[in-house]
């Protein structure tokens, strides 16, 4: 039955207002659109099995949290192809472009700043081992290294790499004898 309701306020006597089956269009008189003003936090639930909820014309929203398929999973991040899911801080590091571990350590092996590192081993002057907390899926990952000098030219290299560790070696001024340097800085990229 066709009909029209003209009202400034509609109050539900029960817990819901039921609209017609099929498309329902809510027209508003101004460009400010439809405003919901709950007196406390409110949930908008899209029933399971319902058609897509189109949000193309929502211009502003203040949402406390979101969940479900719209939130990128670790697999979404690792695949790195989705353009329709959202990245959250605790999963952004799973993207191939993100550093999975990094550290700056002083000459004796003490970490100054770090992420995802379990320990640093001082295995002699100018040589050491970084042990990663959450390992890579294989030894096929990239270690980017830089070394801070306190005098002299540094030659540095990464040596043995496993899924959870890598070692380094530094020398000064062309010598083949390992020597301490000012600090060690490493960042690691790959699949965990």
């Amino acid at each position: 039955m066709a009909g029209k309701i003209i009202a400034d306020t509609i109050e539900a006597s029960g817990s819901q207002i039921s609209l017609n089956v099929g498309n329902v269009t809510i027209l508003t008189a101004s460009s400010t659109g439809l405003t919901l003003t709950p007196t406390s936090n409110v949930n908008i639930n899209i029933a399971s099995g319902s058609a897509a909820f189109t949000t193309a014309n929502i211009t502003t929203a203040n949402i406390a949290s979101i969940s479900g398929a719209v939130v990128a999973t670790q697999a979404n991040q690792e695949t790195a192809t989705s353009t329709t899911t959202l990245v959250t801080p605790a999963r952004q590091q799973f993207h191939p472009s993100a550093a999975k571990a990094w550290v700056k350590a002083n000459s004796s092996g003490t970490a100054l700043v770090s992420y995802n590192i379990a320990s640093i081993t001082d295995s002699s002057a100018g040589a050491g081992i970084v042990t990663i907390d959450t390992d890579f899926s294989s030894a096929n990952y990239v270690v980017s290294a830089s070394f801070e000098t306190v005098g002299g030219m540094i030659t540095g290299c990464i040596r043995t790499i496993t899924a959870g560790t890598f070692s380094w070696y530094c020398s000064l001024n062309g010598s083949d004898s390992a020597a301490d340097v000012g600090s060690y800085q490493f960042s690691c990229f790959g699949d965990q």
Partner: protein
Amino acid sequence: MRKIVYTNSSGILCVVHPVRNTIGETLTTDAEIEQRAWNKLPTDAINPKFVNASDIPTDRTFRSAWEYTE
């Protein structure tokens, strides 16, 4: 936080510094962080021991000649 010392297969004394990450650390206590480092020691580590940080020399002039004695 304590350190771990062990001798590697080349006979060199290694000093392991357990790391409390400045970003994204999941562990809380020093004991947990020390244990994480211990659990990840190389399988060929010889005679590993926890030692106090104050037991590690700060003078590294002869670093490669360090030995551990109780």
